[in-house]
């Protein structure tokens, strides 16, 4: 698989990825294949290891062991070849917020070594497409959480990568912008791109994704085409069945108003 290069059937292939933080085994020997051209959802409860796994698959966090291949290229052995194929939107990290929205997109494009005229053209397209043109001249530090998410998404897309890895891309984004992002991502997949997104929202994953992986306690509990994973159930029910419900339900009688 690793030697098949550009024609590799998997956009991302993860083998034996492991990460330990002190006593906590965050990701434990995870294997996962993400087919090229798929819209892949990664779901899991809080603290399941989704972000850690995606960080290791995108070059943000060195794994303790295991490999991640992007279209057949070993990411950690050949980052200069693999990283240009990836567009990444991490969750919960700062942005260079002393730049304006427009400048941050240009910065991302220029870092990828793109020509400044191409950067300008795509920057303007992205600002309009993500409804950010009014914020183009505002410093990112003054952005709302949703706008920050959208501008980081624009940075992930500016170099037209083959694979987009998006950690919670719809969090804090308003419904109108979410619709626009869904259309952009849908068109990207239709033309052969691959989207990997993590989310807590099952309905969103069910609506958008054709493949899904359920992650819990640092393992992949189930993965594959959406219908296979659902096994005839609602995704949410199947998810709760896989990761387990809260151990004890307790009646909060004191919360009742009458």
């Amino acid at each position, binding site marked *: 698989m690793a030697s098949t290069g550009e024609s590799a059937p998997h956009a991302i292939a993860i083998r034996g990825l492991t990460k330990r933080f002190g006593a906590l085994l965050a990701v434990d020997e995870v294997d996962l294949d993400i087919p090229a051209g798929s819209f892949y959802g990664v779901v899991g409860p809080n603290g399941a290891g989704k972000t850690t796994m995606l960080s290791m698959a995108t070059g943000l966090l060195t794994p303790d062991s295991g490999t991640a291949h992007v279209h057949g290229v070993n990411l950690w052995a050949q980052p200069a070849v693999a*990283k240009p194929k990836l567009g990444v939107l991490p969750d*919960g*990290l700062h942005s260079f917020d002393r730049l304006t929205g427009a*400048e941050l997109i240009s910065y991302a494009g220029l870092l990828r070594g793109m020509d400044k005229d191409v950067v300008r053209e795509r920057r303007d397209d992205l600002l309009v497409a993500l409804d950010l043109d009014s914020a183009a001249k505002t410093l990112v530090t003054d952005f709302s959480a949703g706008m920050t998410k959208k501008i980081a998404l624009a940075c992930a897309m500016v170099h037209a990568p083959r694979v987009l890895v998006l950690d919670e891309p719809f969090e804090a984004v308003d419904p109108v912008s979410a619709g626009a992002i869904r259309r952009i991502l849908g068109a990207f997949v239709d033309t052969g791109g691959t989207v990997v997104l993590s989310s807590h929202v099952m309905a969103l994953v069910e609506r958008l994704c054709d493949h899904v992986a359920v992650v819990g306690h640092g393992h992949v509990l189930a993965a594959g085409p959406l219908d296979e994973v659902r096994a005839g159930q609602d995704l949410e029910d199947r998810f709760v069945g896989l990761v387990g419900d809260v151990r004890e339900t307790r009646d909060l009688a004191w919360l009742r108003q009458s």
Partner: protein
Amino acid sequence: MLVGGAVWSLTLLPLAWWAEQTLRYQPWDIKEFALIAVTIVVTLGWVLVPLLITGLDDTLDPGRFATLGVRGKTIMPGLTVAAFLTVPALFFAVVLTMLAGSWRPYGLDVWAVALVGTALTLMMLVLSARVAVMWASRLLASRRARTVSLLAGAAGLALIAPAAWVLFQDGLQLVVEYDVPVLIEQAGRTPLGAGAAAAGSAAHGHWWGTWVRLAGLALWVVLLHRAWRANVEYALVHPVYRGGGTRQRADSMLAGMARAPWGWRRWRLSTPARAVRIRSARYWATDPRYLASMVGVLAFPVLFFALIMPAFGLDARWAFVAPVLLAASIGWGRHNDVALDSTALWLDVVSGQLGREIMWGRMAAIVTWALPVVLVAAVGTLAWTGLWSLAPAVVGACLGVLGLTLGISALTSVLLPYRAPAPGENPFGAEVGSVGASLVAQLISSAATGLALPLVTFAFALALVVDPAWGWLALVTGLVLGPGSLAWAVSYAGRQYDRRAGMLVASVS
């Protein structure tokens, strides 16, 4: 840090005891003089140290309470108590109380006055420090932060300049004999020395003067507390680091691609490196954390030139140490440069294998302002001394020291990064849990700087003391070793950046 500070403080207590014993049997006027002088020095320390050495002020930052929606009135009692329960506050409480004990031979009443004066003085110290830090953070966070910090620097110089001028004119001995006593006597009439002077007045029966001084000092303490409270209330509703609605007309990222500044054309950096340079330059111009460190590098050279040189009556040639010291402070000060990006550096990491480009861009942004500043300081010193024959030596030493120290900083900021205040946090704050790492990084970068500097300063020293002709050797070594070591270090640091790319985000967050 806490334990270290406490242990260090305890070792100083015998010294305070010895001072108290010595003062106890001195006449009242000498005792008063000495105690006022101690108070002045200590006050200066309390106000200046948290401003110059960022990261020392780890008391509760009121900005952290902004999200809780509490009122200033509610948290002020807690903040006030917390401000007095720090190692420095407790240490000075003990030391000043011990020194106040030297008034015991004058009777219980005088001793009681001394203790009240000490308590009020301690309050003044702690509150002055809080007010100074909060005002400084507030100024640096303002939209015109750059202008404000320049003005603050100029005001600081204006304060030091008369003192320096008098010192240069009269020499240390005359100043100590005539000017310092007058200064101390005047300080005894202001809140600054009132706490110490009150006991002196009581000791020779001027009880009226005692009450006036204590009342004045108490009023001053109340005013300081009010000022602090006003700042806390302001901080609760004005998070530090907002852009203040600033709008940038043009995309300077793309504009910067079109024109290469003069001199860069031949050596034009790659596109990613130029993007990083433009981004870094924006931070240098607008981010309070960078502005604070930019003002901070001036402290040591200015202190050396304006106070130490005249105070010790050093020969004019010593003035050349100031620009070299400036170059070293700028270079050493960047030893944690990468960490100031905080987790925003994810964008640099995911964008490819760009370590060299990133490090070159960062260094180019620093050199763009640091080189002119250092050269202006060097030429200014040459003009002031008139010793133009030493020009090659000074310029060579400055270039060599700047390049070498920046090179060391490029390496340590990649190899030994530690958590720095994140964007939006108080530039004078320390990150909890980072003190051990920062101490190691600072010690190693200081040791490396100390070991490497003789390479570029040896010929400079010979030019100063033996023969100006050595200056040509200093110029050659500076021109070769400065840029050479910087170029090597930046490239090496870039390779290390790539190797450690998967650990950087974690190590600075």
